[in-house]
């Protein structure tokens, strides 16, 4: 059967030759078409990750570049820096509150909206619109809203609102209080992103056929049990997707902090991305800044890699 083998070998006629050329042309063309973007990603993403990694091991801690290798010294100094340790702890608190809060609030809203509400579209739009704002706008508004005011002049923003509703005991210093500074930032972030989670969950809830709930009801499950044992497991891919989206936003949070608080009192609102910017472009410690960048990259990878494995495996299965 040598005649069927692709290629000019054997007793092939002109038709085979034409088809062979066409196939080769297709292959070459497809490679050529992918090449520009592949090259750009190779240089501008992976190339610069490699460069940043290299800088983080170098001695470039002033304005003039100095690429001499110093090993892990920059990382050691970072972890001895109390401010960096505080930013890492803040990042942990912020991510926990922001991701957890958005997931819970988003799920709650989706469940409430899924009960055949009148004017559902209106509510949906109102809940979702903060997503359309930038973190800078959110930061500026919430900076006003969470401004605690002063004892002499009276309260402002949310505190004033609480006072007017007779809930004055709930007043706090928000982002001016070093103990809860980062929580105030998380409140603003939850306000912005929970509507997005609501939209994802609502889409998921609409995808669950009524038969399944009906079957559970016939089996004697209460409404709460239906959500716990039927709905939530079916929504697991959505929870997972929302977790990834919120997680990577949360770990890279920078603009909200800049617009809202800056580092805050005692660095209580500081996050690694902000510290990285200050260290690199204000203090000219490029190597240490690069070190923070690499640490952030590792943290985000810990979050993303399981997701990639999960989604790739599912693509193979389907």
């Amino acid at each position, binding site marked *: 059967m040598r005649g069927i083998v692709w290629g000019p070998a054997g007793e092939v006629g002109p038709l085979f030759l034409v088809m062979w050329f066409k196939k080769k042309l297709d292959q070459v063309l497809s490679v050529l078409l992918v090449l520009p973007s592949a090259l750009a990603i190779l240089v501008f993403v992976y190339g610069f990750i490699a460069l940043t990694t290299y800088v983080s091991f170098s001695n470039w801690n002033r304005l003039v570049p100095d690429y001499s290798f110093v090993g892990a010294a920059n990382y050691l100094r970072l972890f001895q820096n109390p401010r960096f340790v505080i930013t890492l702890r803040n990042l942990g608190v912020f991510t926990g509150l922001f991701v957890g809060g958005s997931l819970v609030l988003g799920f709650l809203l989706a469940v409430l*909206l899924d*009960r055949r*509400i009148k004017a559902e579209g209106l509510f949906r739009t109102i809940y979702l*619109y903060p997503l359309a704002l930038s973190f800078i706008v959110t930061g500026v508004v919430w900076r006003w*809203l969470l401004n605690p005011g002063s004892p002499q002049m009276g309260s402002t923003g949310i505190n004033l609102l609480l006072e007017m509703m007779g809930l004055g005991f709930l007043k706090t210093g928000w982002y001016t209080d070093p103990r809860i500074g980062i929580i105030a930032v998380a409140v603003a972030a939850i306000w912005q992103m929970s509507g997005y989670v609501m939209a994802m969950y609502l889409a998921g809830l609409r995808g669950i056929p009524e038969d399944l709930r009906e079957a559970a009801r016939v089996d004697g499950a209460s409404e709460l049990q239906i959500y716990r044992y039927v709905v939530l497991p079916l929504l697991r891919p959505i929870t997972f997707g929302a977790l990834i989206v919120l997680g990577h936003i949360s770990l890279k949070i920078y603009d909200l902090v800049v617009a809202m608080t800056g580092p805050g009192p005692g660095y209580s609102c500081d996050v690694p991305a902000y510290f990285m910017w200050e260290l690199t472009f204000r203090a000219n410690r490029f190597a240490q800044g690069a070190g923070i960048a690499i640490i952030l990259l590792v943290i985000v990878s810990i979050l993303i890699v399981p997701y990639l494995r999960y989604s790739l495996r599912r693509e193979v299965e389907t």
Partner: protein
Amino acid sequence: MKLRPARLLLYIVLIAFALYYLMPVYVLVVTSFKSFAEVNLYRMWNPPRTFSLESFRRALGAWAIKDWLQIF
């Protein structure tokens, strides 16, 4: 259609959340129509006493539409 109590509660909760999401935008809009002298953190929830478009004029001025038009 008569509203059952549970249904009413549901709507109250939904409207309360809607107010929570709209609150910052209320502040933004109200503040944008105040004159510069009137903007004050301690009276941020009050509607503007005099309707003023001064802030929009300034913002658009900073945007410098004319300069951009000259480029084209």
